[in-house]
């Protein structure tokens, strides 16, 4: 099994490299199309035209596009991802400061989505052939129709503005220090033994994570339900029934185990989409993660930052997809090769 997983990961990584290259080249080109002058933007407003020209030469902007790309590539291989024009900081450090926040949110949201999805899927299946089935089915379609950014706004309005029971800005209450260990607040708080920080971080994660979970769990629900339908046609279900096992046991122990595989695959794919969905949710909740960084960068036409953050999203999604595929191999004995 280990060998299969290694081979798979290895193949994926090798395949990912050209993809990343092409993606960054595309990004590079699209961004150069912008009617924006990075040289002018990185100088104070009173710079003369001559100074702008000099800066332009210094930044290598007078060179042909492919050459600029190669220079950028060379820098990247040396760990230099460019410098944000607007914030005047290394993009690498900016991404490093914000990525853990987004990952933490995405993981939390995914866990919730999985719980909701599996629970909901089981419920929907259990309600089959009853009057509730149609309602549940319709309900899941309605839920599917509310994208995460609408959920974000609705939850903010209901729980933040109207009921005022949960916070909806930032990651931590103002009075609390941020323990800088991994960047994952929940983990860091536990490592420091600070339950108050843990609780505050938890509270601040709830609304954005629930918004994401509500948006991405209906698909999981529906897939689990339909996989359960498929599984229930198999022989071993009938055999289990004949052995006298209760319906509940059949559903939870035997059917679920086999139906969960395609569900997990979908969940994995969903995770990729969920990760990119964090962008809007972060904007709505002023959550200092990658999404807010991206929106700021886009608004300021900060090319190096847009490039770095865009690539980061791609890399993360690629990593997620590879991890999901590996998990699939691990869980599915049929795919393992000696």
């Amino acid at each position: 099994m280990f060998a299969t997983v290694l081979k798979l990961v290895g193949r994926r990584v090798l395949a990912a490299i050209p993809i990343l290259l092409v993606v960054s080249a595309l990004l590079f080109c699209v961004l150069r199309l912008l009617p924006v002058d990075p040289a002018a933007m990185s100088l104070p407003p009173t710079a003369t035209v001559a100074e702008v020209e000099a800066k332009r030469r210094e930044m290598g902007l007078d060179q042909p596009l492919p050459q600029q790309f190669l220079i950028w590539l060379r820098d990247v291989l040396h760990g230099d991802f460019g410098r944000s024009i607007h914030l005047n900081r290394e993009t690498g450090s900016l991404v490093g400061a914000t990525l853990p926040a987004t990952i933490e949110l995405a993981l939390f949201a995914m866990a919730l989505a999985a719980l909701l999805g599996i629970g909901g899927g089981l419920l929907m299946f259990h309600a089959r052939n009853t009057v509730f089935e149609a309602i549940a089915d319709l309900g899941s379609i309605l839920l599917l129709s509310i994208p995460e950014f609408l959920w974000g706004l609705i939850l903010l309005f209901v729980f933040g503005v109207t009921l005022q029971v949960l916070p909806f800005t930032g990651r931590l209450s103002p009075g609390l220090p941020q323990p800088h260990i991994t960047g994952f607040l929940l983990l860091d708080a536990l490592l420091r033994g600070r339950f108050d920080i843990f609780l505050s971080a938890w509270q601040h994660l709830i609304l954005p994570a629930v918004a994401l979970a509500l948006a991405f769990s209906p698909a999981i629900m529906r897939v689990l339900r339909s996989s359960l339908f498929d599984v229930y046609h198999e022989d071993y279900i009938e055999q289990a029934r004949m052995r006298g096992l209760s319906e509940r046991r059949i559903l939870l122990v035997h059917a679920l185990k086999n139906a969960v595989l395609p569900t997990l695959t979908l969940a994995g794919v969903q995770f990729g989409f969920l990760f990119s969905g964090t962008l809007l949710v972060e904007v709505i909740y002023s959550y200092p993660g990658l999404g807010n960084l991206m929106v700021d960068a886009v608004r300021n036409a900060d090319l190096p930052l847009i490039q770095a953050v865009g690539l980061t999203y791609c890399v993360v999604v690629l990593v997620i997809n590879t991890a999901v595929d590996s998990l699939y191999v691990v869980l599915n004995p049929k795919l393992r090769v000696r």
Partner: protein
Amino acid sequence: MALKLQRRAFLQTAMAIVAAASSGVMRAAAAGNDAVTIGWPNDIPSWDPNQRFTPDAQPIFKAVFDQPLDQDPQLNLVAHLIKRWSLAPDALSMAVELRDDVKFHNGDKMSTGDFRYTFFERIKSGTKLDTANSWQKVQDIVIESPTRAVMKFDSPAPTAPQWMAFLGSYLVPKRYIETAGLDTFRSKPIGTGPYKLVEYELNSRIVLERNDDYWGPKPKIARVTIQIIKDPSARVAAIQSGQVDCTVNVPVREVARFGKESGFAAELNPITRVILLQVRNDLAFADENVRLAAHHAIDKAALSKAFYGDAAVPLSVVATPGTPGYLPDFVFKYDPELARQYLARSNYGPGKPVAIGFATTNGQFPSDYDIARAIVAMWKKVGIDANLEVIEYAKYFELNRATKLPEATLYSWDNATGDPEIFAGYLLNPKMPFSAWKGMEVGQKVIDLRGVADYDRRIAGYRDLNRFAVESGATIPLLQSVLTVVRKQNLTYAKYANGWLLPQSMQWT
């Protein structure tokens, strides 16, 4: 199955209840007697206070760093790090005497060496700093003693004292920067101010602690947390829920609402910030009739009523009431009929509108986008068809440099000093990146005034200029901006006419 689900649901509900319950506990903990949390709309551009001029960042810089001169709430210049100063009659030099009891946060003693470093050596070394522009006239700073120095300018600098209390003029530690390096300074800044920086999360929060060795009056608040909340509605929610004790730049209607709620106080403070239209002297605005028509067509009182609760004073010149350059008796009328007449002279009208471009920011200052859209509608009624485009604030300079700005741009200009040079002298100066107007009838007057050393002559000159600029359609001032402040009722602060909200002036009563 149902049980499994129940268990899951129960756990989640329990967690949510715990979260909700403890949120109440959190709220109570925030309002301490020597700690304050402020909700602020923007992060600082960098901890190097000389690097980027950002009006919104000044109150934060003023907590950690000191300026050589300061202003009192009525904007009069007062001694600060500089004990005494005297500008030569020809404004070609300025002698300063610094205090001798000032220490940086790391214990280093402040001296004229730091003064020379900040206003001369740093700039000449080629580091990219915005102070390189404000202090470009400095030819040298002659050090006479650890507390006495003379600044020498290569051309008259009549507003040098004002600039000592203005954007970016903060004293930075020479020894610390030279030994530890600029990057370290930017991540662990050291100043002489009443507060020390103890924690900084980019785009998230700034935590300051009182500097107990401060040379000046000790602040009453020992710990200040500035939470960066970019979204106005999030700021409103934060003050509503008690997450912050004070916040600024909330929608004007919220001020009215909070004013009625017990436990809160809300203010609309007029400040020395002007909302205006920067206009070009060419393209469709080459025609003076069109420019004047555009100005007469704007109902400034209606804008103030709709977006600022009537608190924003309509302006006819590019200066705010109470500043030397203001002309209380000069009024540029709102007269849409007159506007139509002007347009008719150039054969335009509601049936045959003149097409212009119009740029605005969205969210740069409260109601900016709303004002722009309202103006578009007002112009449509008289025969001006404006194509509105939203730009980022930083893009204005880029477009200006490339002369690609549209005919009109909605602009907000802060002048914490109140001095007229820093209003019209910058906004209409064709040699500066802020002015879209490059016409020399106005431009030459502006350039000439910058060299006048005599204070009274200078002010009289600016008053004339302000009137002339408006009458020739070189600028379209709109309103005096207001700062919206919402705070807990028992938190007080000093009200500065330029809108500075200084943590060191706050206290709980």
